[in-house]
């Protein structure tokens, strides 16, 4: 059943106009958000200014999970409806998701040093993020692991589908595991009890990340579609050339 979902021509037409808008919005939001979080928001009484890493760490975590949800949905759509745009959107989500997860892990590591004196802490969130990172690497590894692109995208979509079931299980089992050895110190890199003065910059940064994610999706999918179009054009040119020469 072929669903006319996101036809490539419509997408190319819209993305041409939306991408510059997205870039401007992202820059503006990121600028305001960073300024607010770094200079206008208060220090935490316990953690000092190190808490400000949270303004990057937490939205990165949110959007790595959001990208993952989009990836799973696109994988399902790709397998059920055979829509090629779905697999391109899934791959773009995977690339951005990997970046967000990496940012989350690195900022988490940098936050851990001033908090507990260690660059890595085995708490539930960081561990789940690390596993999610492996999942993204596996998805991209499958996507780029075959010469036949169509086959590769199908295999990657199957993994995306498996991940939809599996990641909640992994998250839950990691949380169970972390309760086993949380004796005295409550190690958690979740945001401290949110005061409104901290909420606004957090939401601003979240909006900036959302805009960044959306714009990046548009850019990456557009690039893939144009590349496909270009390759098809080259092949038609070769065939015409052979036909003329014959």
């Amino acid at each position, binding site marked *: 059943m072929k669903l006319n979902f996101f036809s490539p021509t419509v997408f190319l037409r819209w993305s041409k106009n939306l991408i510059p808008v997205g870039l401007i919005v992202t820059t503006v939001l990121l600028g305001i958000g960073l300024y607010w979080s770094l200079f206008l928001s208060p220090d935490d009484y316990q953690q000092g200014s190190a808490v400000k890493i949270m303004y990057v760490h937490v939205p990165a975590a949110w959007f790595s999970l959001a990208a993952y949800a989009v990836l799973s949905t696109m994988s399902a759509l790709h397998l059920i409806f055979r829509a090629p745009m779905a697999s391109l959107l899934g791959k773009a989500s995977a690339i951005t998701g990997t970046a967000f997860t990496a940012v989350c892990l690195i900022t988490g590591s940098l936050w851990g040093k001033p908090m507990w004196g260690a660059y890595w802490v085995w708490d539930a969130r960081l561990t789940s993020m690390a596993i999610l990172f492996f999942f993204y690497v596996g998805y991209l590894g499958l996507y780029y692991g075959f010469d036949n692109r169509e086959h590769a995208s199908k295999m990657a979509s199957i993994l995306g589908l498996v991940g939809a079931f599996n990641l909640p299980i992994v998250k839950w089992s990691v949380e169970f595991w972390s309760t086993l050895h949380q004796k005295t110190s409550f190690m958690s890199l979740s945001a401290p009890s949110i005061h409104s003065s901290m909420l606004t910059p957090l939401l601003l940064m979240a909006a900036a990340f959302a805009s960044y994610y959306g714009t990046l999706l548009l850019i990456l999918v557009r690039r893939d579609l144009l590349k496909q179009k270009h390759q*098809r054009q080259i092949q038609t040119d*070769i065939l015409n050339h*052979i*036909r003329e020469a014959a």
Partner: protein
Amino acid sequence: MTPFFSGQNISCIRSGNNVFSSKDFSLNKGELLFVTGPNGSGKSSFLQILSGLSTSNQGHLHWNGLKIKTPSQNHFQRLHYLGHDRALKDDLTPFETLCFWSNMPASMISDTLELFGLNNHKYRPIKCLSHGQKQRLTLARLHLSEKPLWILDEPTTGLDEPSFHTFVNALNIHLQKGGLAVIATHAPFQVPFPTQVISMTGTIGKTL
């Protein structure tokens, strides 16, 4: 008379390359179709489409008047496909291999092995067999399968003169019983049954 097994406008596009296009054929019971052409011309791809392993980019296959939708378990049930890979396990013996693939009684299996000159190697692991002997074993397996449609990709490579005759005899018996056969080969041979030839021209870029 409607042909028993036929295909219209069969075409194959691989990685953007037009391997072949607009091939038609029709085969009746007791008939043989040779598929010829140079190496790389798409003979194997054509046979794979006929067996339902791949799907034709255009056109359809019909069996006994009904359109075949790939992949189709019904279609698989009536055909025996012999690819380039001989599907033999080195650690098993010819006897075990034939027992596994065909539910025939042991006596029949022994008879078939004798027919194809493998009696002395019945219980030796396949890794000890020569190339020609392995080929004969694949043909023995073909002989034991009671499927009406044979789709064979270069079945006679590596066969010596006596084995070649054994194979042709087995093919004749199959055709006489009303079976159909599609054989890809560089060298078509004579059989006392209606024969057709399809040639894969082998030029990439021929118009669709």
